[in-house]
């Protein structure tokens, strides 16, 4: 709660910068348009105007400033344009309509959640393997790192085609790509977490002659919970990015990714920007949800104080 004012301040500063940037960013297009509409613009040919920076052009044509904020295809839309577009596509549309961002959000979210589930389970299993098996410990990690340096956008179409060739289509291929991005933070975090019990905590169980599975359930797993949540928060936003990436090569049918692509391809920047922001808001909400779960769980487990 103490963060609300600072966050609002930062957001305010960013909005201000954004608004200021809109003017020079859109000035060339605005000047071209103004000239076509018969206004006097200086200098008076588009080619000559290319010689000026957006800023310089603004100084020579201050009268055009207001027009930069209402371009139909701006280079940089103004915040209110994005807000209006989001209002129109989130609030004013029936959520079952394909013009509604809520609908597209759900399409992306379902792949995200499925992928996140797969990625998290895989990540936890790998982490358990790494912690309990020395050979796995030594062999898997470098390859897990390497796997994350592969550009997913290059891999995604192949995954889709390969899964398509064995008859798997729809949600699942997207979820696989999303899982590919989210398993890594979970592995890293869980390995750390499962290894977090100190020598004394482990020795205590040895004095009881506890079995390895008792050691897992009663010590390593609970001790790893804070690490797990930290990884889940990174993993869920990675999952979302994965689902969005996967929406391009699955035929760009629906979802935030499809909106971004189509908005870009058909010269509708507002569609792209609205989808971008909706995606970031979704990510923030998911992360927020996990933070909440984290707080509740850790409090119930007695691992945070008060």
């Amino acid at each position, binding site marked *: 709660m103490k963060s609300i004012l600072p966050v609002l301040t930062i957001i305010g500063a960013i909005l201000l910068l954004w608004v200021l940037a809109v003017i020079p960013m859109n000035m060339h297009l605005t000047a071209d348009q103004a000239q076509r509409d018969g206004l006097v613009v200086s200098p008076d040919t588009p080619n000559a105007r290319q010689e000026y920076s957006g800023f310089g052009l603004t100084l020579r044509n201050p009268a055009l400033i207001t027009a930069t904020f209402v371009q139909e295809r701006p280079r940089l839309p103004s915040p209110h344009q994005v807000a209006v577009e989001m209002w129109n596509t989130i609030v004013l549309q029936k959520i079952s309509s394909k013009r509604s961002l809520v609908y597209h959000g759900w399409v992306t979210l379902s792949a995200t959640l499925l992928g996140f589930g797969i990625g998290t389970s895989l990540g936890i299993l790998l982490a358990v393997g790494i912690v309990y098996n020395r050979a796995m410990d030594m062999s898997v990690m470098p390859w897990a790192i390497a796997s994350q340096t592969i550009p997913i956008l290059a891999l995604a179409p192949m995954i889709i085609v390969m899964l398509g060739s064995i008859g798997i289509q729809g949600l699942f291929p997207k979820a696989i790509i999303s899982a590919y991005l989210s398993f890594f933070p979970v592995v890293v975090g869980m390995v750390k977490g499962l290894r977090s019990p100190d020598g*004394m905590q482990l*020795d*205590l169980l040895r*004095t009881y*002659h506890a079995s390895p599975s*008792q050691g897992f359930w009663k010590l390593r797993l*609970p*001790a790893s919970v804070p690490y797990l949540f930290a990884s889940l928060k990174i993993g869920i936003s990675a999952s979302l990015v994965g689902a969005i990436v996967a929406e391009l090569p699955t035929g760009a049918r629906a979802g935030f990714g499809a909106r971004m692509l189509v908005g870009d391809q058909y010269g509708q920047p507002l569609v792209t920007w609205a989808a971008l922001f909706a995606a970031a808001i979704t990510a923030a909400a998911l992360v927020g949800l996990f933070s909440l779960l984290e707080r509740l769980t850790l409090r119930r487990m*007695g691992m945070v104080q008060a």
Partner: protein
Amino acid sequence: MSQQTIIHAQGLDLTFQTNDGPVHALKDVSLEINKGDFVSFIGPSGCGKTTFLRCMAGLETPTAGQLTVNGMTPEDARRARAYGYVFQAAGLYPWRTIGGNVKLPLEIMGFSKAEQAERVARVLELVDLAGFEKKFPWQLSGGMQQRASIARALAFDADILLMDEPFGALDEIVRDHLNEQLLQLWARTEKTIGFVTHSIPEAVYLSTKIVVMSPRPGRITDVIESPLPKERPLDIRDSAEFIEIAHRVRDGLRAGHDE
């Protein structure tokens, strides 16, 4: 006296292999501990007290020598759940309540639910923590946490209690109080206790046998059988006998240091 020997160590040697070369932690350590003994280990930092305690508990394996516990190897004794071990720090699991922490060994050893509850209540009572069952460790002071860890070691009624500086972090008054309680418990239950401490008065006050150790390499320099009676009020510490034993321990320690 036909006392039953519980722990029998003969010529123990233990060397740790480290990056900086080997560390000779225990050298030619021989000791007999009888049933019902209260044995204190005292010595400068790094002399191998913890290491020896861990050997007895089967948590560390000597590189040479013989060590039997109840006539078996420490490993087997551990499997038979012969030990209650209290570590230097409380080491409670932060995600378990005090009750949950004390219950942990009982769960692992498969006691019935009813028995678990009954034992938890009993040992918490014993260490004066009745009513704190539902609290989490961080809601308790350091002293209370340490008492909870003692309760945890007592819960399953192991014959041998090994305690590694259990009262190191407590202030003198609380410490006195816990010393008294520990003596009472020991008198009542006839457990065999191994106890590490840095405090000479504590060692003298509690023990039937004081083992003085010296470092580099860790070995036993003196074993003092205490002539004090089993019944020990706190002011026994002002008696001449007490002060004499304390002197002998201090001299032993200083000899180890000055070498």
